[in-house]
């Protein structure tokens, strides 16, 4: 496990965004926090490549709500990541929710149950809602529209365009272009 995260670090040192690199260098040498902070940095960025349906789209000036539903693996890291981030005219705020109640205003939701099963239940609660759901492969096989995974020591993500389309979200082809895999309606 330590080797895997070292390789992530190497990949990051040479090829990743300099901001993340600096962030990583500021942290103690540990694979877990680096991986987490990369994922935390990714989360608000998704907002740039997603088009919400009218009504769900954040009005100009209003914040984009990034919800952490279930248990929060990020802690302060996510708060730091969104601090000062603006997607277009919109700032980004982090909301932490225990369940899907009150999640209807979320734009992006990182879903993480205690178990894989509870994650699936949470996702079911958000089904057909105009919320971009994000899950992590480390938390089980339940998949949101975006599903983090580690491939070759690097943080990547799978995209489920079918469920996004069901929630009337359109995901930019640019994002699809860098996704590890894309599930599309055949």
């Amino acid at each position, binding site marked *: 496990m330590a080797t895997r995260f070292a390789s992530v670090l190497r990949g*990051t040192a*040479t*090829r*990743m*965004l*300099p901001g*993340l690199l600096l962030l990583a260098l500021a942290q103690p040498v540990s694979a877990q926090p680096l991986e987490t902070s990369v994922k935390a940095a*990714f989360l608000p*960025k998704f907002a*740039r*490549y997603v088009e919400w349906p009218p009504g769900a789209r954040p009005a100009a000036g209003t914040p984009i709500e990034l919800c952490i539903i279930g248990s929060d693996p990020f802690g302060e890291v996510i708060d730091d990541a969104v601090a000062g981030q*603006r*997607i*277009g005219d919109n700032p980004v705020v982090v909301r932490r929710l225990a369940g899907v109640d009150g999640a209807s205003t979320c734009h992006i939701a990182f879903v993480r149950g205690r178990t894989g099963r509870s994650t699936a239940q949470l996702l079911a609660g958000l089904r057909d809602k105009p919320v971009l759901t994000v899950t992590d492969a480390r938390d089980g096989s339940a998949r949101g529209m975006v599903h983090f995974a580690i491939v070759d020591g*690097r943080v*990547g993500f799978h995209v489920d365009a079918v469920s996004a389309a069901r929630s009337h979200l359109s995901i*930019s082809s*640019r*994002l699809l*272009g*860098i996704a590890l895999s894309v599930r599309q309606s055949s």
Partner: protein
Amino acid sequence: MRPFNRLARGWRSVPAAAGLMAALLLLAGLGIIFQSESAYREQKVREARVQAEILAASVTAALDFADAAAAQESVNALRVNPQIRSAAVYDGEGALFAGFQRSGTTLPPTLAEILPPEGSVAVAAAPVARDGTRIGTVSLSVVPEPLSRRLTRYALIALFVVMAALVVGVLGIAHTALRRVNRELAERASALAEANRELEIQIEERAKAEEQLRQAQKMQALGQLTGGIAHDFNNLLTVIQGSADILQRPNLTEEKRIRFAGAIAQTAGRAAALTSQLLAFARRQPLRPEVLDLNEQILGMADLLDRTLGERIQINLDLAHDLCPVEVDPTQLESAVLNIAVNARDAMLDGGTLTIRTTDAEQNAERGRALLLAISDTGEGIDPETQARVFEPFFTTKGVGKGTGLGLSQVYGFATQSGGDVFIDSVAGEGSTITILLPCSEREAATGEAAREQQVRTCAATGCVLVVDDNEDVGAFAETLLGELGHTVIRARSGAEALRLAAQARIDAVFTDVVMPEMSGLELAERLHEQRPELPVILTTGFSDRIATSGSGGLPVVYKPYRLETIAAALGEAMRPKEDGP
């Protein structure tokens, strides 16, 4: 050297328009090439920028999510374009994020190290922006098409332009050359016209001079002729007058009377021969052709020729046997031979030989059978210039009074009027030959005997003859002659009188002059024949244009001066059918 100068002149005078046009064409060609080149470069830069922008757009997410592999994939997609030498994506800090380069180039590790474009390489950079924030930069360096290929393309344009310029230039030169040639031609044409005018003037002057010369020659010839005739006639008249004077003297012996009367007759005959020659050269000589044997005629002339030519000239006769008869006027034939012989004599002052030869001419399809009478001398010969003129009337090499210039003219007139021809052939110092060609006659030659018999018959003729002549003397003479022949004669002095008398008296024959005022002899004959078609009419004339040209209409003609036997023969012939008739 001359063509070169011409060319140089041609080059100098190429119309400015053509030169200007060629220069403009070349300029335009260069302009097109430069414009094309700069447009090409601009287009390449634009293309590079567009491609950089596309690349920037496609790597936005990759940069955003620090996905260098995805960025590299996007960048690698550009490798298919060989003109892209290198492509690089730099992140927001200016560090190399993804990129590729071909051999010979290096990728600057940071954005700051990108050098400004060098030479033909176009560098385009495009920002990778996210919500207006620059998160990275894409840099492309593009080499244009290889220079050789562009040059090939431009060379084609240049070739066309140069060819067009050449065509224009050549056209200009050709036009100039043509104009010069035209000008030269025009000059030459005008020079020619000028020369032609001068020539025409000269020709006109020469024609005038020739006309004057001809006139002078004619006058000279006329002088010679009249001199010659006057000389000859004076001689003859002296004899006639002298004889007449002697005859008028009383107590003349019979012997003297006969001698001087004979002299008058002989001399008058010579005078008649002279006038006959005058008519002969004018070719208005009335011919009295008879069918005869040429050899017999030549032999008959032997004595005459002997006497004419004198002792110093020997005469050779070379006569072919069995020659065809010819139909010619014997008197004219005699004159022709005599004329040639006299000329020969004059050419052989120191003596020589005259050869008279008769022979069959080569048969010729055009003129049929003919014979030749060639008379050669061994004299001094005739130069070619004179040869060309010997047959001309009035032409003579003899002094005034020595010759009339009519001798050979008579020969020519006789030969051509007889349907033949005459040729001259002479070698200076060796002698001359004059050849007369005469066509053969289909008829039998009359022998001397037959002619005599005929004369005997006519002698017996008698009858009442009406003599018509406006000339009193000639009329009286004719009356005397016819009276001598035993005819009863009635005289009339005009055609009208003759018609009146013919209506009153019984006339057996009419002997009329042709040329008379009011009514000609021919008209009279016509009027008489209206009443009595069988009435014999005999015409007589010294010379009549009309008879010479259109004939006598079948009537017998007796030419003046006539002699007793001539008129007797004519009357006898004319009245004979009546006597022989049933």
